[in-house]
């Protein structure tokens, strides 16, 4: 990671910003630093939770094993498709929603509050409710589709590899798009009305206004929201865990789910930690690319 001093003229050493940062640093580091250090230690050992008397140091053995583990590569592949689909579609739907909600109409405050509901529910409920709606025997989706003649016999949504994967993607888009809608909506509020008035005078079409005024003005907010959401989705596993537990077979395995199952079902905390660290390193790569790119704009 390049430090600020590599690319910028050395800024004067003032104390104020550090003082402003101190509380945040204290709160987060106090809680995170020790557990993460412990996890790194575990990843270098063959640490099995129920064998506390026998924890041999194996260096990078867990990482070596991981590179030869086909389930790791499979999960990584799923994770990539997964993150791009879920975050991408959440974002597009969220952006559309925010743009609609930013206009003025009589039921706006109602619409704004209703749209947030999926996001206001715990993942356990979301997972169970969607599993139940997708149910082969008593699910409401099969019932509705049958009534409208879209299918001629019930579909076992969660029992086939592809449909299981996309069924969960739909549930996750539902869960997460309100986040983008709300975040982008707040970003839209910071755009000065004068800009639009000027554009109106110049006779800009609505598409031109979106392309040349709205989007550039909220680019920073969008980029940050995308980055944070990518990290969040990349790490989340609760909805998958409830809906399929990774199945059928390995069809819905993602990296964090695999790490979780290794750690809590196999009690192999050493290997689970290695998987988690690998995931963090891969995410770090994404962030590095983002920060390099964003740095140019941020540091103006």
């Amino acid at each position, binding site marked *: 990671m390049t430090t600020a001093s590599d690319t910028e003229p050395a800024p004067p050493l003032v104390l104020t910003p550090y003082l402003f940062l101190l509380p945040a640093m204290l709160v987060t580091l106090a809680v995170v630093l020790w557990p993460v250090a412990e996890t790194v230690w575990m990843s270098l050992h063959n640490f099995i*939770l*129920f*064998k*506390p*008397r026998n924890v041999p140091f194996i260096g990078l053995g867990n990482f070596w094993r991981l590179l030869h583990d086909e389930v790791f590569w499979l999960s990584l592949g799923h994770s990539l498709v997964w993150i791009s689909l879920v975050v991408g579609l959440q974002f597009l739907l969220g952006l559309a929603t925010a743009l609609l909600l930013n206009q003025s109409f009589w039921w706006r405050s109602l619409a704004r509050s209703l749209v947030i509901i999926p996001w206001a529910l715990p993942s356990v409920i979301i997972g169970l409710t969607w599993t139940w709606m997708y*149910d*082969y*025997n*008593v699910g409401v989706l099969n019932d509705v589709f049958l009534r409208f003649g879209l299918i001629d*016999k*019930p*579909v*076992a949504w*969660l*029992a*086939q*590899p592809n449909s*299981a994967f996309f069924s969960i993607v739909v549930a996750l888009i539902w869960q997460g798009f309100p986040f983008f809608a709300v975040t982008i909506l707040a970003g839209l509020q910071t755009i000065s009305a004068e800009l639009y008035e000027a554009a109106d005078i110049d006779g800009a079409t609505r598409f031109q206004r979106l392309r040349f005024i709205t989007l550039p003005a909220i680019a920073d907010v969008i980029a940050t929201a995308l980055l944070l959401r990518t990290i969040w989705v990349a790490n989340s596993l609760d909805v998958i865990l409830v809906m*399929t*537990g*990774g*199945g*059928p*077979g*390995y069809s819905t395995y993602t990296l964090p789910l695999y790490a979780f*199952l290794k750690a*809590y*079902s*196999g*009690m192999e905390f050493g290997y689970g930690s290695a998987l988690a660290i690998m995931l963090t390193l891969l995410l770090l790569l994404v962030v590095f690319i983002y920060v390099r790119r964003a740095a140019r704009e941020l540091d103006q």
Partner: protein
Amino acid sequence: MKRRQFIQAAGATALSTPLIMAPMVNSAKAQAATVRWWYHFDNPQNTPNDLIAQFEKDNPGIKIQAESIPWGGGGDYYTRLFAAIVAKNAPDCAMVKLSSQAQLLEMDALEPLDGHIKNWAGKADISDNIWNVNKAQDGKQYYLPLQYVVLYLYYRADWLQAAGLQPPKTFEEFLAAAKAMTKGDVSGFGMRGGGGGHDNWAPFIIGNGATFAKGGMVNEQALAGNRFYVSLARDHKVTPASAASDGFRQIVDGFKAERTGMIIHHIGSANELVTALGDKVSAVPVPRPANGKGWTMFGDESNAVLSGSKNKDAAFKWISFLSSGGNNVAFNKLTGQLPVTTSGASSWTLHPKRFVDASAASLPLAGVLPDSPKTADFARTVWPTSMQRALLGQITSDEMMKTIEAHYNG
């Protein structure tokens, strides 16, 4: 064979002999102690408060601090317990299952109870063989039995009758019954390919001669049993299309919605099924292979005292209170399982008689999965993943058995 004998004995006593209520002695010694106890109930509306109040009245000086811990498919409960043990913050006693005994012992977390049990008045009300099934590999007694269930076959009596068939006793009859009931959007057998489905699978595999010893999952009978089970879905198509992902909830919902004709489960769902289907549902022991052997799953639950406890005597008093005669009956009314005491079993009325009978008739077949640290992972990931892959045709039935063999003996 200790387990087999116990279960037969338990069956015999549960069924026929009304036993003498063991006298309960609760000497109320003056001692100030708080006992932390962890439990999990399926219905959050039930609480053990009445039992606790009774106990505290009998034992002034002991306070029970009961904590319900989320079950979370078993994972959350044991994660909490293991983390608490690692952090030296474990409760004094907790509800535990045999499948975790090996792991808990490996962590030095359990207190041997032999000394306490020797002097406990309620000892005789639990048959010797129940004690034996819960004995650890080192011969000591760490678990104090609390409740049990045993898996059997639920079937639609009306549909079988309409087809002119008897409740299936053998694999062949089972297949014939499943075929007869499969029509339209009804499937003969609600197969459970999702989490926990190994309970339903084991009767066809272990029952056919598979074992967990080296080579036991790849011997000829084991392979044949699994081929039969997989073929129910892939060749005979007597299972719902969703079999690969169905868990406990789905098979029960499907059966209640009259979409399947048979499922394998235990007495815990009896009242729910009777509410939905009335007399149309009945139960028999799981089918057996032609040679007459057979196997079904014994679902145990006990209490244990944790080795880090500072109030071991008080903790034992509390858990022994729960396993004595009338208290054990009261406790099982809260959980919907079956009492372990012979006196309690004789007066059991919570479930319709045909399901209590089916449970008792299943006991001679009943066993538990091996007392190995690998069993938890087998049940949670190894079995579901390989079963689902076999059902989807991603691997063959024999490859699935090789995976399981490799997990236990690889």
